[in-house]
């Protein structure tokens, strides 16, 4: 794979302290960025995979873009990210950088739309409030990585993919009657982690 355009010039890197750790074995954000710069397709695939829902949430929740606009902005953000990865000063700061690219792209899209047709005004402060909520959601998402694979899967399927108990049970291969208690147990562990009482993986989601 060719290195992304502009991938050569790199200044001194400052390692930002990360308060949270990703699941064991997952490359860090900085490692993914370095891989992308080196032209590693897999690193790019993982980077997109890791942050796609974050970019998506900023588009549809932070700025309430309609689906077709959100899709255009989403693709535009990743195209810009690919083009400009070499300009990123701190590889650990790829998420805030993506957030900035996404916010700008959303605002550009809203401005362009307002020249063609009137767009509904966002309530005062709405955007900031929603973006703060996306950040909060990301914090919890990162905590999720500290849970067992089983917990992660059950919580993701139930809350993020809106799957029913029956679907989860069939996909994961566990009795439907145990889903609610597993969700509850995993959430409890997540809560403990969020409140700083437990930052180590604990709940197995019922699997031993």
């Amino acid at each position: 794979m060719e290195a992304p355009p502009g991938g050569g010039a790199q200044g001194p890197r400052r390692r930002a302290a990360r308060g949270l750790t990703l699941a064991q074995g997952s490359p860090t954000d900085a490692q993914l960025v370095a891989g992308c710069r080196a032209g590693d397709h897999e690193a790019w695939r993982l980077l997109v995979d890791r942050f796609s829902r974050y970019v998506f949430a900023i588009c549809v929740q932070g700025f309430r873009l309609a689906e077709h606009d959100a899709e255009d902005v989403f693709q535009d953000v990743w195209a810009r990210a690919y083009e400009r990865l070499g300009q990123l000063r701190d590889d650990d700061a790829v998420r805030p950088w993506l957030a900035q690219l996404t916010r700008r792209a959303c605002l550009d899209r809203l401005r362009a739309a307002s020249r063609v047709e009137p767009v509904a005004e966002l309530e005062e402060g709405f955007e900031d409030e929603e973006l703060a909520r996306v950040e909060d959601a990301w914090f919890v998402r990162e905590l999720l990585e500290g849970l067992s694979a089983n917990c992660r899967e059950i919580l993701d399927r139930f809350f993020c993919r809106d799957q029913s108990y029956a679907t989860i049970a069939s996909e994961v291969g566990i009795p439907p009657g145990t889903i609610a208690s597993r969700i509850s147990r995993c959430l409890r562990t997540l809560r403990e982690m969020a409140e700083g009482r437990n930052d180590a993986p604990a709940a197995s989601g019922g699997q031993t």
Partner: protein
Amino acid sequence: MSTYDEEKLGELLAALPPAPEAWVRAAQDLPLLRAQADEIVARAEADAAFRERLVANLNAALEAEGYEPDVRLVEQLRGRLEDA
């Protein structure tokens, strides 16, 4: 940090649904698409007849050369061939 009860955690988890798969795949394919576009533009620069065929009918020329005329590839090539 604010307090997180189970209900709030559930709401926050739900606030980050996955992006549509096709969108994600398209973004992931970006490097391959760029590489393909680079290859085609390089060929067009070296082969005037090929470039003429591309300019005359991009989709048909791509298909004739065995490229999948993906809409994103076509858009990118259109811009680059105009610039070149």
